[in-house]
């Protein structure tokens, strides 16, 4: 990918308070059988 000339490069340090990554998907609970009264 052409992102420009290397000699113009400068460094940035980014430490987000919270990483921009979604949480893991919640585990699906098994459907419960109706319990007879």
């Amino acid at each position, binding site marked *: 990918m052409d*992102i420009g000339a290397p000699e113009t*490069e400068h460094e940035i340090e980014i430490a987000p*308070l919270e990483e921009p*990554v979604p949480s893991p998907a919640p585990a699906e609970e098994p459907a419960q059988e109706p319990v007879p009264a």
Partner: protein
Amino acid sequence: MSSRAAFVEPIVAWRLWHVRRHDDLYRLESFTWHHVSWPARARFEAECSTHGAAAPVEGHECGIYAFKTRELAEDLLRRYTGVRQHYGRPYQELPPLRQGCPIAIGRVSLWGRVLARENGFRAQYAYPYDLFLIGGEDVLARELRRLYAVDVWPS
């Protein structure tokens, strides 16, 4: 030697991905490196055959690449497909992609150690921010949305 600026907000930039099926699931794959899959719901980490997890390294070409603008990402797509047109909303034209080989263009969050140039970035960590599918239908958009938990717009 470079001066280093520090921030707490991720950079949001633009890039392209291939969308390919792995086992039973579609995955985003690096556009320029074949069979490098982006994990779902986990950060993608730069790795370098020379510098390992220290990527991106100054004076080298390692790291996760992204462009500063959508137009620059579209330029790469035009070079790839050999056509001149815009993709994604509000444009509806589809490029002549191979059947079953969709592409995603979208924004990506970048953080960690990032090296910035005129047109883009090389980053240590990344995760997709949102995606516009080219050559993909609603069912694929739904699958990617569920898997990566980001907005995905079908073409």
